[in-house]
């Protein structure tokens, strides 16, 4: 369980101003909002990548090794798909379970190219590899920043089903940033809407997407529908 309170972060052209307290427990959370509204900054603060100027983050017993983040433009090491996938295990000195590795490669549709040089993969394949790399070490919190944006629909559906199935068996905390509102609707238990670096609205996907109250949210959804 992670609790964030009154987080602020100032940059030269933008500032995040999250003046509230929120708790993230073993559920799937969504964050939506227009480009540059502060979603990624908030997520990076939660991941420990950016230090806030003000505010408190209570990790609730989670260590940095329990939290991972999947980026829209993932970093892949100059090595094979397989070596990239097992890197989190290698640094934990855990011997990879071949069955698990094969299962994840199959989930991502990368089994055939496990020995291929990872940076040469297509952007969609890179996102898939990055996603299964986050799953392999069983983190307790996974932050996903538009990590499905370059994937084909079939792969996105497969990953969504995997998330929902694993969430039933072993619930962890997921925070998902996406502009694909269908992802948010299918996956999330709770959704936050941000605008200009600030919190604007929250609720269930139905409340946020089907019955929006805040004018900024209405405007955002209207623009997203085109």
């Amino acid at each position, binding site marked *: 369980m992670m609790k964030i309170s009154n987080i602020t972060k100032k940059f030269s052209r933008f500032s995040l101003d999250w003046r509230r307290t929120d708790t993230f427990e073993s559920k799937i959370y969504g964050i939506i909002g227009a480009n540059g509204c502060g979603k990624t900054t908030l997520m990076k603060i939660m*991941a420990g990548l950016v230090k806030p100027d003000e505010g408190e983050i209570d990790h609730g017993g989670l260590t940095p090794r329990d*939290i*991972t983040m999947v*980026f829209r433009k993932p970093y892949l090491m*100059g090595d094979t798909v397989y070596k990239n996938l097992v890197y989190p295990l290698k640094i934990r000195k855990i011997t990879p379970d071949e069955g698990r590795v094969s299962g994840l490669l199959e989930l991502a549709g990368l089994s055939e190219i496990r020995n291929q040089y990872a*940076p040469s993969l297509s952007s969609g394949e890179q996102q898939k590899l990055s996603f299964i790399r*986050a799953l392999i*070490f069983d983190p307790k919190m996974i932050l996903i920043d538009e990590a499905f944006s370059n994937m084909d629909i079939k792969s996105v559906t497969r990953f969504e089903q995997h998330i929902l199935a694993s969430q039933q068996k072993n619930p962890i905390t997921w925070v998902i940033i996406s502009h694909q509102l269908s992802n948010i609707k299918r996956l999330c238990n709770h959704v936050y809407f941000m605008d200009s670096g600030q919190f604007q609205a929250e609720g269930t996907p139905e409340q946020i997407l089907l019955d929006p109250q805040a004018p900024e949210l209405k405007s955002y959804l209207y623009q997203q529908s085109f």
Partner: protein
Amino acid sequence: MLELLDQETIEIILRTLRMTITSTAISAILGVAFGLFLESLQPTRTLPKFFKWLVVAVNRTLMGMPPVVMGLVVVLIFTRDGPLGFLRLMFTFEIMIIAQVLLVTPIIAGIVYTAASRNGERIRAFAHTMGASRLQTQMLVIRELGNEIFFAIITGFGRAMSEIGAIVMVGGNIRHHTRVMTTTIALDTRRGFQDQAIQLGIVLMLVAFTIQIIADFLRKRERRNDENF
């Protein structure tokens, strides 16, 4: 080729290689560490952005420093009346290495810093999200910047190999003692012994050519890495 070279020439070639390899190795350790450290420095209240900019600007100036100026600085420091004159290092093999380290370290540090500025933050962020420790993160940064670091070292090696201005000032070009390939070529040409100068010139070019082949191979590898654009 070696059969054509006399004993003294072989001695000069071996001394040159010993000096160049030693100074490049020391510079590589210092330069890579300093370049990566500089890149990882985050501006804070106690360490303003200006300080980092200043250090980078000074390093870039040192990268292009004329060797004779560096030679002059080393002479002033190590001359009998200088602050480190008591070490009695003037006109020794060791002071030639010191002069070369001072010339080559900023070059390696500058190249490593530039390469790390492009990708270092991204690699560290990735390592953090994978749960890597500080040491594991540093090891990953070095591994991922391997090509660039190697290229920086090769560039430094080339500079050390071809350098003459500083080492002739601090080493004195003493026969069987501090004479190396570049200083010998200059001396032989001036004395009219072109044969030995040509021999050494060819060996020097062969070494430079080998360095170029390695560098070119690395660049090809980099291009292959980026084939998906």
